């Protein structure tokens, strides 16, 4: 409704620029409550997202807590040089990208599948029940999830390890196994977030025009045909949107999770950019280097978002903007 109003009241007549200006104010005034509602949101972004950006300056400083941003010496690109010269750099990037990629691929499909399955459920109570149960793990912290995984997989007392040992199949030690570490991250992430991810697709499914289904039935389409020709195209935009958003965070492989699951035997496959930044920034107080890594991460993220958006548009989707 607001959009319709706006369209009507912004006449594009250069001759009537004065009246145009007045009309602009009138529109503004008429929609003042909507603008007011925007203020908290804008203030939030300004305060917590844009203002802290000034802090990226310390990426170019030998930052000292006592001297602060104004007093710390400028060092140009030195911090970035430290990062790129670090022998750990490429393994870190490799681990981060791989874990992220596995998670993006591994997570998107289960989200959609769960949403599609729930969409086909006829009984309302059953649907709510399944939704509640699958949504639940999203609220658990990673510390608790780690505790659960530990009680299943710990080499000595874990439920599964004990079962395997008692069955005579030998001793398993999955939590310190380099081959199993990344799959374990993906699996636990799927377990924790699928219920939440499905909600977005359920919303998208609910917004598909029912007449399309009716028309498809008239044309003789069965359930699978409807799914293929109506449902999936109906949620394609949301799917692409989620993909772009996730690709933007490709260097965020999930600090909370990895930090807790990491141990000395899986550093080589599990140490990611964020755990490194934590060690550098918070344990060694080298905030300049840590911030430089953050800036690098953001730049890569931005490139990926722009790239993914362009790609999405190219293959016929709508993209983000």
């Amino acid at each position, binding site marked *: 409704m607001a959009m319709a109003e706006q369209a009507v009241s912004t006449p594009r007549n250069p001759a009537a620029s004065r009246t145009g200006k007045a009309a602009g104010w009138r529109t503004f005034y008429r929609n*003042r409550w909507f603008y*007011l509602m925007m*203020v*908290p949101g804008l*203030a939030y972004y300004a*305060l917590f997202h844009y203002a802290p950006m000034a802090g990226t300056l310390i990426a170019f400083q030998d930052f*000292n*807590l*006592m*001297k*602060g941003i104004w007093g710390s010496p400028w060092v140009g690109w030195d911090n970035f040089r430290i990062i790129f010269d670090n022998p750990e750099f490429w393994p870190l990037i490799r681990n981060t990208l791989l874990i992220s990629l596995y998670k993006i691929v591994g997570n998107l499909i289960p989200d959609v599948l769960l949403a599609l399955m729930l969409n086909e459920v006829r009984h309302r109570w059953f649907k709510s029940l399944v939704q509640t149960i699958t949504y639940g793990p999203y609220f658990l912290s990673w510390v608790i999830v780690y505790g659960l995984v*530990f009680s299943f997989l*710990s*080499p*000595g*007392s874990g439920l599964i*390890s004990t079962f395997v040992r008692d069955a005579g199949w030998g*001793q398993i*030690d999955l*939590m*310190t196994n380099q081959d199993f570490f990344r799959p374990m991250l993906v699996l636990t992430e799927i377990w924790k977030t699928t219920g939440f991810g499905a909600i977005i697709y359920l919303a998208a499914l609910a917004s598909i025009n029912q007449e399309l289904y009716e028309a498809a039935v008239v044309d003789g389409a069965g359930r699978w045909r409807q799914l293929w020709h109506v449902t999936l195209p109906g949620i394609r935009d949301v799917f692409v949107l989620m993909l772009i958003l996730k690709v933007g965070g490709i260097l965020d492989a999930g600090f909370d999770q990895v930090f807790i699951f*990491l*141990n*000395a*035997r899986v*550093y080589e496959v599990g140490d990611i950019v964020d755990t490194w930044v934590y060690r550098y920034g*918070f*344990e*060694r*107080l080298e*905030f300049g280097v840590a911030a430089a890594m953050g800036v690098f991460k953001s730049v890569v993220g931005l490139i990926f978002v722009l790239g993914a958006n362009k790609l999405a548009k190219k293959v016929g989707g709508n993209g983000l903007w």
Partner: protein
Amino acid sequence: MQKKKKKAVWLGIAALMLLAACSNGNTGGEKSAEGNAGETGGNEPAKPAKLELNWSVANNMLANVTLPSADQDFVKRAIEEKFNVDLKIDYMVFGEEYHAKLNAALAGGSAPDLFIAGGAESQKYIDDGIAANLSAFFTETTLPHYFKWVSKQELDAYQLKQGEFTRAILPFQRNTYASWYIRQDWLDKLQLKPPTNYEELTNVLTQFTKGDPDGNGKADTYGFTAAGNGLSLPFDFPQWLNNGFVADFMIVDDAYVDNRTDLKVEGVLDQVVDWIDKGIVDPDWFLNKPPAHHDKAAQGKVGMIFSPGDKTVALDSVATSVQNRAKALDPNADWKPIYPLDKPIMWKYNVPESSILVSTAAAEKQPEKVKRSLEIVDWLTSEEGFLLTHYGQEGKHYTKDGNKVTLNVEAFEADIAKAGNWLNVYGVFTPDEPQVLGMELIDSRISEHDRAILKTIEGFPKHNALPPVSLVPPEGINIGDFRKEMSKFHVKAILDDKSGKNWPQYREELMTKYKGRDIFTEYTKQLNAVLKDKQLRAFE
């Protein structure tokens, strides 16, 4: 109507701006100082202006500790009245997380006025200029009581640069309560004698694993467990000591020995692998996060554990001790301290590890805060402060007759022990050692059984590992990184190579690529500066 709405909009915007303004820096300290000067200025001119103090403290006794509400907190009240301050004290169990939290506060520009930090961490704070020079504030005249706990010589040796006073030693317990503990009832059941050397110990622990000591018909017990925290091979393993390594550092044949990176660690690794192969060691030892290993002991799953300093493991009088928790599940459970090896020295006497630091911000902008904070520290280390922060209020929680302090157990348990053990927060400034101040504690909760246990643990042979000195790695080298690589190699040898045979090669990598030789050559130099008469050989 329109006007009303307009007013509402402005009100909303104003509220928002106020919210934003609140997130600005804290200037409360000065504000309250002004406010109070007016109140007290008239009749009590001697009383100094009220100050707001922020402290951050930590030690090992602060797990599960919570301060009571302000009206119950008689220590806070005593301090605030005596020194005319508003004391805000942050507390947490000592460790990596504490320092991460502290670092976050420092990075956020809200450095506590006085804080406690670990030895290595305090070096970093001093290098970065976060900790202030205390030469002017911290002297035998300004803190007379403190010097009953720590000597001037120790303090001087503890400084990073001679002649510059940047960190004070947090008074610490001299004796250590390191001990292994064993299930005496399992020994009895399997008719075994307490082990006295490594071979006997291996045999006993094998029996604990294979002989079904808990009698449930299942092979579900292990001889030994530890908590590697997913990182390292802890000192819990008696193999360290069995190969002659006492704790972390020592001096042998006029040379500094860094125990965990010595060439002879190969023997330690081989013997640990041997135990693992024999099935003696709980396979969770590496991933266990402390205190998971003590939990397993309490659950009756293992027969031997180690504790580097917690003296309560086998005590009856502490409700949460391993002994009491084990007894709740198995009435026969009987944990006893044991020294299962035949080596002359078991552990080292404690060395100062935590420092009291004062933030530069406070020292430069409000030196009065530093002065007042240190006055409070001195009071906390005095007899009055010690008694209040360890045993509560006189007459209520304890009675004092001469030098004998008798704990009123009922009141103490109700108001303090069962109310979150909160006195520990203020008690961090002094160890629980009344004898330092010439007093003796009579605590009726400590039974004959417990007294015997404490005596045994205190009596285990210990030595002073190094002369009083603070070892500082050369500029630009991070000791934490070195230790991390070291631990990775230990773990790799044990769990991947399943042998110590590659250790010499790993060690060489540690010494060269990770700069071990530079670090320990520097340490030797620093030790020689203190050991004037008897010089150490160069580190090899």
